[in-house]
């Protein structure tokens, strides 16, 4: 061969098996961990093995930590499941943050205003209905505008987040205890009215079970139901959908109402089941993290269990690191950032192939 044989070149993959694509991601995570280890050593002088075992400890170190991790996993997974039908429809719903928060607000409103006035079990049901309705409304509004006036759903859903945030901030001041503190505290702390019942002595068990059921439901809904099929077709092309006799506007609205309602459900679980309070940061950006969860799992509900687990473990572990080694919380964010960079970057390798010329071999 002559002068400048290229060392490597890149071509688009025609197809890839799911095993291979998950393997690529696995390798990406391993590489990310190695890279994080090096960074940790260079910046802090700590033993990276210790750092990683601390991450693991932070997520699963004790029974309690494992339960909290499972609960956080359930909440993140729930939100991810909620936005997935919309995303499959290529309706870029980045308003999950607001849809969950408005569900939280509706639930808190019921618990505060009706606490002690109706039986607790009934109150739970009322709160649930209110949360579902509030979330559904937050999904319905951008959908109806999209369906009828072709508004940009990304901006619309994003702005709805701020409305929800401001409403929550306003009502926190209305309901704050004591006056002027900017805090609601635990709602119905003594009566526990409207609190989700505790199953088997584990506060989070019911939440986790509900989300597990929801995961199964969403998988079946998207894969086998007529609605799921319609969503796929609408996501592919509105014209194809019309051609097939699908009423595109109706599917958009219906799907977003479902998406919003599930967000509302998660909001209900957060307030009635977990935190028993309302703060503007209760959702804590998970409405946006969920986008990543859903995307990384290629909108597959079962895959989302793993992607959300990964993100939750990272977050929990990162918090643990920052306190155990007295590092600033930003250090934990750096590690999370590196790992996400690798995972998202690995998408390149699932879509493209890198060939090394000399060795005449394919390298993933």
């Amino acid at each position, binding site marked *: 061969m002559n002068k400048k044989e290229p060392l490597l070149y890149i071509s688009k993959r025609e197809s890839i098996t799911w095993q291979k694509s998950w393997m690529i991601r696995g390798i990406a995570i391993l590489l990310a961990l190695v890279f994080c280890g090096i960074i940790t050593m260079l910046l802090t002088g700590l033993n990276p093995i210790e750092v990683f075992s601390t991450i693991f400890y932070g997520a699963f*170190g004790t029974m309690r930590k494992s339960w909290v991790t499972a609960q956080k996993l359930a909440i993140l997974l729930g939100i991810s499941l909620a936005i997935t039908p919309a995303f499959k429809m290529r309706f870029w719903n980045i308003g999950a943050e607001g849809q969950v928060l408005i569900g939280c607000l509706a639930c808190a409103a019921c618990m505060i205003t009706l606490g002690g006035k109706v039986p607790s079990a009934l109150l739970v049901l009322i709160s649930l209905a209110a949360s579902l309705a509030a979330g559904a409304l937050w999904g319905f509004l951008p959908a109806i505008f999209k369906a009828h006036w072709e508004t940009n759903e990304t901006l619309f859903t994003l702005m709805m987040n701020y409305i929800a945030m401001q409403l929550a901030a306003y009502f926190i001041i209305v309901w704050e205890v004591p006056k002027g*503190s900017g805090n609601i505290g635990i709602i119905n702390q003594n009566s526990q009215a409207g609190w989700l019942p505790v199953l088997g002595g584990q506060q989070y068990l019911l939440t986790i079970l509900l989300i597990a059921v929801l995961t199964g439901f969403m998988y079946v809904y998207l894969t086998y139901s007529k609605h799921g099929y319609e969503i796929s077709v609408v996501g592919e092309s509105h014209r194809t959908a019309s051609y097939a006799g699908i009423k595109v506007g109706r599917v958009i609205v219906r799907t977003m109402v479902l998406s919003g309602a599930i967000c509302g459900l998660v909001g209900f679980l957060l307030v009635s089941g977990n935190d028993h309070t309302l*703060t503007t940061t209760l959702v804590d950006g998970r409405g946006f993290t969920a986008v990543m969860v859903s995307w990384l799992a290629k909108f597959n509900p079962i895959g989302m269990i793993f992607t959300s687990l990964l993100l939750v473990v990272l977050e929990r572990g990162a918090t643990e690191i920052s306190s155990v080694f007295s590092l600033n919380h930003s250090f934990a964010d750096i590690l999370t950032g590196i790992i996400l960079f690798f995972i998202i970057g690995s998408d390149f390798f699932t879509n493209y192939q890198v060939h090394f010329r000399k060795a005449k071999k394919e390298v993933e």
Partner: protein
Amino acid sequence: MKKILAMVLALVMALALVACGGGNKSDFKVGFITLHDENSTYDLNFINAAKAACEKLGVDYVIKTNIGEDQSCYETACDMADAGCKVVFADSFGHEPYMIEAAKKYPDVQFCHSTGTRAHTEGLANYHNAFASIYEGRYLAGVAAGMKLQQLVAEGKPAKIGYVGAFTYAEVVSGYTSFFLGVRSIVPEVTMDVTFTGSWYNEAAEKEAANKLIQGGCSLISQHADSFGAPTACETAGVPDVSYNGSTKDVAPNTYIISSRINWEPYYEYVIKAVQKGEKMDPDWTGTIATGSVELTELNTDVAAPGTQEAIDKAMAELKAGTLHVFDTSKFTVEGKALDSYKADVDSDEAYEHETEVVSDGYFHESEFRSAPYFDLTIDGITLLDTAF
């Protein structure tokens, strides 16, 4: 499948051992929960005290920063109890309900919550509140501010000062009123504008609030919020600032005068010693100047008016001697009238009932019926620019 499960479990245990293994120097362990981290002056003040107290007493400690006022506070407190902490401290008002939940769950662990209001009514043997008579510190800082203001008025500046508060509740109201009374003991004609940010830590909002007050003609600023927002704004505008929680001389060398702060070290020592000895603790503990809990940080003599130290010393001596009361009802009026009786909301209940008579012997008895402040009146001379929070 079983094999995999077993392997995972083994791994978990191995890692758990690794993580737990490191450096136990004593078998007595204490946990601290803070709302923010070292970047907040308020939390830094706690963190420093925690480290100092634990190192002095030679006990092991964990500090968890950035713990929100939500379920994560409960989980963290329980985590600490699980990890063998005998005492768990939390530093933010909003942590209280979650600390109470944790206290119910772990009756053998002491849960001590600073700035809270519910320990004396909740009836839990292992749940305690603490605060300090910081209104006295605020008053003294006010005296320093008054000296500076006197100088400024002589230079032709208006006798008006500004105050950046976080929320409109008693802790803040008590703080700015005592500060104002301190200033007025030097400059009788002073008035004060107060504005609120609705957050304990919001650098941008605090900066903006301080700028708003400066533009409104305030000659001197003080604040009760935890970022460097107000001091930074004052430094930029060249307006003197009386700080809180600790010295902000580093960020505002040309405008910082003095700062009052609660030194939590005495309280932490008190609690740790009491628990070590198995002694019973009060549900409510109020630190004072005498216990070393109320402190003034270094006086910036480059900015402060001459004679400031002397004026502070004099007022401090009178406070210690009991001849001076900050909330002396002869020194202020509410809606034009002297305050001869007031029922404060001391016991927390859902109706916010004001049930306890707190005015007697010619002064308002702050932080005596419980540690956390309950002075929540707006006295004449103070204007609230907004009350949204």
